[in-house]
Each structure stands twice: as structure tokens, then as C-alpha cells.
């Protein structure tokens, strides 16, 4: 069986769906952040597959930016995680209801 672009896109969709599933179901805030990484990674895979399909290089530039955004997001997110954990000794996101206005 030959590998086509749709295989890559379906794999990317599966990875993204696993990420969404994790974000929705897990209550550990660290694992939620990891699932966000998984979703960004699925986007990268789709970018590269389409870049190969069209023969352009723009996708490679864009995944550089995606990875930059992911790194920044993780840095800020983990700083928040440490701050929250110090305050309430738990990683349960359901305890963050105090944020409501």
C-alpha cells in the first residue's frame, strides 16, 4: 500500500483528536498542557504534509513559528502551574473555579 498525503492528514487528525480528548477529560493540569503540545504537534505534521504536496517551503517556516509559540506557551503555563501548586497544593483544574467573575 502506497503512502499518500491523506494518510498523513488522517494521522494528524487522530493525533489532534487524542489531544482534544485529553484536554477535555483529564483534570491534572500538567497532562492538559501535554495534550496541548500534542495538538500543536498534529498541526505541524499537517503543515509539513501539505508543504510536501505543494512543493512549497512555506510550511517549514510556519512550523518554526508553531514551535516557538508552543515553547512560549509551555514556559508561561508551567510558571502558572508552579504558582498555583504553591498556593493550593493541588493540580486539579476543577479547583480553579475561583477565576469566575
Amino acid at each position: 500500500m502506497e503512502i499518500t498525503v491523506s494518510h498523513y492528514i488522517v494521522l494528524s487528525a487522530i493525533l489532534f483528536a487524542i489531544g482534544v480528548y485529553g484536554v477535555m477529560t483529564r483534570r491534572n493540569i500538567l497532562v492538559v498542557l501535554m495534550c496541548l503540545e500534542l495538538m500543536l504537534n498534529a498541526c505541524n505534521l499537517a503543515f509539513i504534509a501539505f508543504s510536501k504536496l505543494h512543493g512549497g517551503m512555506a510550511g517549514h517556516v510556519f512550523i518554526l513559528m508553531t514551535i516557538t509559540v508552543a515553547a512560549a506557551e509551555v514556559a508561561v503555563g508551567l510558571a502558572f502551574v508552579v504558582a498555583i501548586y504553591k498556593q493550593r497544593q493541588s493540580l486539579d483544574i476543577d479547583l480553579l473555579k475561583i477565576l469566575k467573575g
Partner: protein
Amino acid sequence: MVVSNKNPVISAISLVLTLFSTAVLFILLNAHFAAAIQVLVYAGAIMVLFLFTVMFLNIKDDELRFDALNIPRRLTFLFVFIIIVGYFASKLFITSKSFSKLSDPENFGTVKEVGTLLFTDYLLPFELTSILIVVAIVGVVVIAKVRKA
């Protein structure tokens, strides 16, 4: 594995495995530069940050009990999962296009090509990402500092 495991350390290591596998797929797609930064930045820097936080917080086993199986919630999102994947699969297998018929340009995926594109057509977004990183660094420092005081 990333989603289903209860221990965050095992989740993180499974995520490293996933990222490495994706890097291999990038190499198969002739995207060598993308594969390199995937391994260096993602599997290197970001995962070290994750593991560092997990170790730093030093979570006990009984503190993870709250994350137990929540069957109705999980079933609901399993349906969402199946719908998303099924939609993409049905849509894309109709317009399947083989890679083997495509011939790449001479130096597709090399650092030189990516760099040329990055500093000509995409100069403004590139500079904006650098500003984003600076903002993130300053933000993290501020968050970390306020809690100490």
C-alpha cells in the same frame, strides 16, 4: 499513552516518544530542518521543562487520586473523537494523491532554503516571534517573582 496514564512522568515520556516518531515522519517527508528543530526544541527543551516541573513539584501518589476515571465524560468525548477522525478519513481518502508522482525541488527542506524564505518573505512574522519570546520570558519572570514576595 499520553492521555490515559495516571502518572504525569509516564505521560511525559510517552509524549517524547510521540514527538520522536513525528520527527521520523518529517524526515520521511524530506523536511530535515523541521525534524531537527522538532527533536531539539520539542523533545529536548520543552520536555525537559515538563519533567523538571513534575520533579520540582514532587507530587505524592495520593494527590493524583482526583484524576480517576470519569466514565460519562470520557464516553462523550470518545464520540467526539470518532466523529472528528471519521470525518477527515472519509473526506480525504476520496481525493488521495500519491507522493511518488511528485518530484521535489533540488534542495527541498534544507536549512538554506528555509533560512532564505524566513529572512525574505517571512521577515515580519519572524521578528514577531522573537517579540513573543521576549514577552514570554518577561512574563514568566514576573509570575515567578510575585509569588516569592
